[in-house]
C-alpha cells in the first residue's frame, strides 16, 4: 500500500528533470527527449490518480497522450532533419536566423 503522494512527488521530480534538460542542453535532440520525459511524468501522475479514484478515464487520457506524443515526435524529428540539412548542426544556439 503506497500513499498516492509518493507517486505525485516522483512525477514532480521527473518533470523538473525534464525542465532542466530543456534549459541546460543545447542539443536539439536531447531537448526533445526531455520533453518526452515531461510528458511521461505527467502521465504517471494521471495514472496514479486514476488508480486511486478507481476510474478508467485517466488511463484513456494517458492513451491519448501517448498517441499525440508519437505524432509530435514524428513531426519534430522531421523538422530537426530539415534544420540539420540547412545548417549542418542541431545546436539550438545556431538556430538564430531571426535574431536582429
Amino acid at each position, binding site marked *: 500500500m503506497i500513499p498516492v503522494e509518493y507517486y505525485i512527488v516522483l512525477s514532480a521530480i*521527473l518533470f523538473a528533470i525534464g525542465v532542466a534538460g530543456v534549459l541546460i542542453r543545447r542539443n536539439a535532440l536531447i531537448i526533445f527527449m*526531455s520533453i518526452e520525459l515531461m510528458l511521461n511524468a505527467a*502521465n504517471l501522475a494521471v495514472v496514479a490518480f486514476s488508480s486511486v479514484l478507481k476510474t478508467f478515464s485517466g488511463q*484513456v487520457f494517458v492513451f491519448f497522450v*501517448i498517441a499525440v506524443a508519437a505524432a509530435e515526435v514524428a513531426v519534430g*524529428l522531421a523538422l530537426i532533419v530539415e534544420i540539420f540539412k540547412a545548417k549542418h548542426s542541431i545546436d539550438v544556439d545556431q538556430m538564430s536566423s531571426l535574431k536582429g
Partner: protein
Amino acid sequence: MTLDLALFLILALVAVATALGMLFSKNAVYSALFLVLNFVTVAVFYLLLGAPFIAMAQITVYAGAIMVLFLFVIMLLGAERLPATNVLPWQRPLAITLTVILAMESTYLLLSRARPSGSVLPPGAEVNTVDNLRAMAMTLFNNYLLPFEVTSVLLLVAMVGVIVLVRREKGQKS
C-alpha cells in the same frame, strides 16, 4: 517497510537515476538508451498501479517506436556529440537553481493545496482478467469516442505533414 514500498522506492531510484543520466550524458546515444530504461521503469509503475494495458502501450509505443525513431535520427545525422559552446556562462547555474525551486514549489503545492488522499492498493487478480480491459474499452468507446476519432485525424495530419516536410521538390538539389 512492506514489499510494495520497497519495490516503489527502488523503482523510483532507478527512474530518477536514469532521468539524470539522460540529462548529463555527453553522447546523445547514451541519453536515448537511458531514456528507454526510464520509460520501461515507468511502465513497471503502471503495472504497480493496476494499468497493464497502458504499461504495454508504453513499452510498445514509447520504448519501442519513439525511441527507435530517435536513435535512427541520431545515427542518421551523426550528431552524437556537439562541440561545447558556452554562449551564456551564467545560464546553466541559473537554470539548475530555477529548476530546483520549481521542483520544490510544485511538490509543496501539490501536497499542501491539492491534498491528494488515498493510497494505491496493490493490484489484485481482477486486473488480469478480460473484464478489466473490457471496462477500459467501454470507457474509451462510449465516453471518449470523439477524442478517439480526433486522434486518428491528428495521426493522419502528422503523417502527411512529415511527408511534405522531407519531400524534395522536383529538380531541386539536395
